[in-house]
């Protein structure tokens, strides 16, 4: 990219493979990374982006000559400061790890040892090199805690991992990587597991720390909008191959490859909002609920309405009570107060009290399609059971209807005989949609149905849902943490925070200022696909981080 003299990392022809053991075939080799080359100069940040299975984490770990769980580096070189880490011996490798190159993992909660104090773990790698005293390293660690904006930087290191929050742990892990003054840090999806309002703080802290220390970094993520904020250049990967590599501005503003273009344009579905008039199909009024054996109210005085054939998006972060609301509506959890009207009738609070027709008209789709289908049933059984159970369909009529449903979700009739394990993530979620449709419901509760999927696949599911809504006139109660999804499909929105609805109205009303403090924070925290968004967002904030 730049002057060859200050090249820090030079990767050439990197190939990584693994042996897979499929249940119905002989074990065989597969390529995870196929002939990838790139170079990185001192002090630069390279974003590695791709969907799951693209090999991005594997490449990051290869810079440390580490293969996770049976993964083997089969070819190529990775030269750091003149040494090929893929060719050196164990002892030399130990010198590189933790001093030249450091690693920040996705889940800091698992990556910290529960048995030791945080500060001891932060300074450990630097201390092991032996050229600095423990006291001076502790000072450096505290300085880094301050740089990363951690509360009580002098004391927080004395705590144990389980005593601090996820967002704080992720920042402490960054401090741990920075402590031994490495030349290169590998960030492996460091903010993916965090809520958006926490993510923005961690992201800003990481960016600030990279800037302050001048360290080079490889930043791995599946979220192009995130990587656009921190990296100087971006490499797009797919199925272990490089699709496109260029500077950040070029990739975001003038993507050359069609796949990159698709990634940049993801989440740009536009759904015009329907008017909020007429009788509501579902009316939740003043519902309060808590879990058995706990006095804490998970839902407080929640009231929302949903009209037939429309979509209400319930948006909030973890702990907001949005999934609890779904459990109350489906009857899995009885509210301690308040009532739910459906089809102009009062809905019995307990599942056992509801009629078969109530159950049929109110279907649910879960977040994890993997565990929402019985692994021992075929698609035919999964989709066919509601037909049999609610409508008594049998034989040819049932077969005919299953084929129709599979056609509606854009899968061929040959899928009927497959087991869930033989489907991809997107196909699984489609089968779950077909199962819900089979009951011919008037309302489907969608609980984070796209959040476990890669962005492009998620887009496909959202488009399908909108199309089905147009044809079948079914209403959706869409539970999500993702505001982009909300914009794409909602007619009305309820924003939830700590068990309460803090903002509720039509999509236009909710997304038009003036905002309440939380909605403002939430909207400002969603990464935008534009360069410089992070700095502007941090500068314009009214409310501190909601969670941490």
């Amino acid at each position, binding site marked *: 990219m730049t002057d060859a003299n200050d090249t820090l990392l030079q990767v050439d022809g990197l190939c990584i493979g693994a042996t897979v053991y499929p*249940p119905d075939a002989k074990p065989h080799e597969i390529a995870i990374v196929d002939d990838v080359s790139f170079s990185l100069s001192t002090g630069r940040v390279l974003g590695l982006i791709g969907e799951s299975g693209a090999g991005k984490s594997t490449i990051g770990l290869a810079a440390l000559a580490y293969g996770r769980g049976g993964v083997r580096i089969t070819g190529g070189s990775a030269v750091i400061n003149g040494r090929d880490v893929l060719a050196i011996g164990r002892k030399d490798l130990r010198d590189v790890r933790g001093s030249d190159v450091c690693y920040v993992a996705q889940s800091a909660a698992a990556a910290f040892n529960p048995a030791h104090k945080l500060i001891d773990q932060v300074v450990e790698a630097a201390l092991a090199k032996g050229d600095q005293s423990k006291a001076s390293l502790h000072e450096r660690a505290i300085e880094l805690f301050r740089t990363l904006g951690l509360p009580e930087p002098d004391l927080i290191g004395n705590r144990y991992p389980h005593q601090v929050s996820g967002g704080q742990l992720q920042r402490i892990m960054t401090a741990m990587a920075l402590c031994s003054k490495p030349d290169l840090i590998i960030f492996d999806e460091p903010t993916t597991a965090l809520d958006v309002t926490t993510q923005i703080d961690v992201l800003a802290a990481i960016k600030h720390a990279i800037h302050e220390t001048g360290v080079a970094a490889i930043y791995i993520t599946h979220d192009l909008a995130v990587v656009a904020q921190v990296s100087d250049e971006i490499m797009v990967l797919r199925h272990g191959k490089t699709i496109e590599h260029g500077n950040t501005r070029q990739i975001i503003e003038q993507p050359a490859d069609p796949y990159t273009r698709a990634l940049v344009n993801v989440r740009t579905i536009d759904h015009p909002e329907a008017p909020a008039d007429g009788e509501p199909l579902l009316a939740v009024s003043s519902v309060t609920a808590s879990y058995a054996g706990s006095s804490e109210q998970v839902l407080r005085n929640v009231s929302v309405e949903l009209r037939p054939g429309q979509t209400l998006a319930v948006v909030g972060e973890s702990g907001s009570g949005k999934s609890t609301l779904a459990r109350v509506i489906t009857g899995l959890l009885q509210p301690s107060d308040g009532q739910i009207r459906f089809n102009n009738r009062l809905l019995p609070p307990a599942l056992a009290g509801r009629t078969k027709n109530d159950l049929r008209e109110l279907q*649910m789709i879960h977040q994890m399609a993997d*565990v929402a289908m*019985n*692994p021992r049933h075929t698609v035919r059984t999964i989709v066919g*059971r509601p037909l049999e159970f609610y409508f008594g369909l049998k034989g040819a009529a049932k077969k005919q209807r299953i084929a129709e449903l599979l056609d509606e979700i854009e899968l061929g009739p040959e899928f009927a005989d497959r087991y869930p394990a033989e489907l991809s993530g997107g196909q699984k979620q489609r089968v779950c949609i077909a199962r819900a449709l089979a009951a011919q419901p008037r309302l489907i509760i969608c609980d984070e149905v796209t959040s476990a999927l890669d962005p492009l696949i998620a887009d496909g599911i959202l488009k399908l849902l909108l199309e089905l809504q147009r044809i079948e006139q079914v209403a959706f109660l869409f539970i999500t943490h993702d505001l982009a999804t909300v914009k794409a499909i909602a007619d009305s929105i309820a924003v939830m925070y700590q068990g309460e609805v803090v903002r509720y109205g039509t999509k236009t009303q909710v997304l038009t200022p003036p905002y309440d403090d939380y909605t403002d924070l939430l909207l400002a925290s969603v990464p935008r696909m534009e360069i410089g968004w992070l700095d502007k967002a941090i500068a314009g904030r009214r409310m501190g981080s909601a969670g941490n």
Partner: protein
Amino acid sequence: MFSRIPVSALLGMFVTSLFLFAAVFAPWIAPYPLTEIVGGVWEPASSQFWLGTDNLGRDLLSRMIYGARTTIFIASMATLLSFTLGSVLGLTAAVIGGWFDQLLSRFVDLLMSIPTLIFALVVLSVLPANLITLILVMGILDSTRVYRLARSVAVDINVMDFVETAKLRGEGRMWIVFREILPNALSPLVAELGLRFIFQVLFLSALSFLGLGIQPPEADWGGMVKENKDGIIFGIPAALIPAAAISILAIAVNLIADWVLNRTTDLKGGRSGH
């Protein structure tokens, strides 16, 4: 399909079926009757008595074959009892939950806080010594382990979204237990079946060896060890033969169970048997 079974499991299956064959056809393949004295005391192996004779001069091979029958029959019956009782109660406790689960689980905890052999000894000190008692005691005491396994597997499955989906659909308890939970709980339970059978064989042998199991002149392998143990110090290895038979059967079944267990862990979330 046999090509995908490891050699160790095939060996286990072969040995197990050999023992089963001996057990089923004992009266037809045993060269001498069970209790008839046919030779001298502790005669060495010869062409007439392939394994020699026992402490009373009975043919050891014949007694071994009949012993296979008694040992395998009682162990199978006890396994069947412990398995039916344990899995039915375990699955039911997991699905019903509430006080039923609490009561049953605490009672099982209590039973399991006494070592099985000790509790069996305590109970056998007052109960009449017969076959039914033995099977009942062995089966009931061991059902606690099956209960725990079945319950924990079913509790894990019961909270999965596909079971929740079935509940939301309005399915009855029968569908949920037999169509949603059981097919997914079957693999770990089948693997456990082998381990429970081994335990029952060893348990029965220990009881008979202590003189509290099968009473003479009936023969089971543990009892035969007891009958012939006095020969050991004179250098007569007759007692080692039934002891070795117990070990070989246990190892063979263990090899099969090990394979089934590995297969089920390989198939996390996948499917099998198609």
